[in-house]
């Protein structure tokens, strides 16, 4: 397990649980950067609007526009100081059932380990959450941002999820897509439900793999050797038959 990325304390009521925060996620993505097709040179994107020259990272500062075209420069320390709460405590303010939290709220996941001299308190919080089947909801200041977080038991450890604020979520009512002229009929619903049942399985995360990543890496290796890749043809998609016929054919398959 990688080193912890932060230390802190979970507080609720008068109890304090020292914890260490570890990321629960590792990035396996392939990272590209943008290059100029002609000469393979990196694409530099930050240009000073006054002298038209590229700006090195060290010369970039944060500014806030006070009037049109007029900025105040703020340095990181000032921003840190203004963000107020610098406490490392995660205050648990309420306890809810996990099933009440819609998945769209979950953002990023972390594991919490027991902090120094905090094993008993950690164990108590873990067992209390596990036994009550509750998730603690609170706030956490991390990298100068305040997060809404959920703390729960996961096997023998505690897990922490940062949560989206509801104002960050777009309401489905604003989507404005057309309704069908005719609602799906009873038979269509029955057949579609039968198809859902037929494809119903237990979720097994290991059965899904990112095959694309491996193929991109293979493509990169081939190109590095100067070979030309043999790419698959796009399959022809048949025109969709009518809904009922497609459902019937799916069930018969």
């Amino acid at each position: 397990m990688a080193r912890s990325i932060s230390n802190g304390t979970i507080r609720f009521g008068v109890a304090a649980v020292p914890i260490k925060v570890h990321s629960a996620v590792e990035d396996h993505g392939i990272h590209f950067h943008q290059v100029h097709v002609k000469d393979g040179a990196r694409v530099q994107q930050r240009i000073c609007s006054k002298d038209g020259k590229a700006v090195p990272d060290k010369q970039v500062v944060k500014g806030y526009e006070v009037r049109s075209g007029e900025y105040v420069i703020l340095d990181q320390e000032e921003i840190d100081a203004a963000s107020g709460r610098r406490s490392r405590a995660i205050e648990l303010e309420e306890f809810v059932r996990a099933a009440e939290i819609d998945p769209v709220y979950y953002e990023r996941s972390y594991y919490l380990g027991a902090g120094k001299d905090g094993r008993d308190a950690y164990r108590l919080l873990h067992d209390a959450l596990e036994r009550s089947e509750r998730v603690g909801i609170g706030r956490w200041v991390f990298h100068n941002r305040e997060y809404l977080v959920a703390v729960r038991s996961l096997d023998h450890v505690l897990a922490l999820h940062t949560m989206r604020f509801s104002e960050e979520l777009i309401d489905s009512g604003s989507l404005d897509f057309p309704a069908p002229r005719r609602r799906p009929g009873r038979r269509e619903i029955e057949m579609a439900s039968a198809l859902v049942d037929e494809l119903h399985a237990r979720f097994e995360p290991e059965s899904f793999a990112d095959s694309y990543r491996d193929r991109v890496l293979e493509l990169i290796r081939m190109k590095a050797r100067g070979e030309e890749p043999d790419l698959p043809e796009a399959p022809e998609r048949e025109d969709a038959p009518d809904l009922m016929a497609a459902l019937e054919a799916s069930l018969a398959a």
Partner: protein
Amino acid sequence: MSVARALWTGSLSFGLVNVPVSLVAATRDVDFHFRQLHRKDGAPIDVQRWCSKEDVEIPYEEITHGYELEDGGQVVGSDLELPAIEPSRTRTIDIEQFVDLADVDPLYFDHPYFLVPAGDDDGSIRAYRLLTEVMGRTDRAALGQFVMRAKEYLAIVRERDGALTLTTMLFADEIRELGGIDRAYQKSHKPTRKQLDARSRCSRSSRAIGIPTRTRTATAPGSSASSTVSARARRSSSPRMASSRTRPRI
């Protein structure tokens, strides 16, 4: 209300039923943003595509992906080849199975989007509606994989408020093992029942505090239903979450 911008367009396929769909944003950025300035003269910094070798602005068409090799060399690939590696998943989300939402650990959830009907023919819109209704009735969610912007995603699709929500998920190998976390559990040190009861009382009473409103008004998940929830919780001391197949919306 204008139609949301499509981030991906393709079809959601379910058996032999193909539903043309567009993927649109389900989140908005509410963060506070600063403008980048040049320290020297305080001038705002423009984001431009600028060649680091030639010192000229580059038109969009002349930009491609570069991948840095371990020996410092670089492979340059055109954008067009990347989707061609897996053409079917670039255009289709094939529903491979349906699962119970309650079986999916929150660790797997990544980013939420909406799927909206893309075709304007009545058949496609009705197929969309059919899938939405059927999933809404059963509280089941569909799993499939697709490729967007040169990355493959595992996605879970389900009904939420009359529309289909697609949430990208992490693959199992992107989630770290629990080994090595300081969990400090020695069997003989299990907390006593008395200690646990005291802790549970504390959890329950702190519920009533609610979440204070700060600079960003946050609605904590579950807070809207707080009174009924806590009343239920007090009646049954240990409700089985797994047996509850219904997921109240928040």
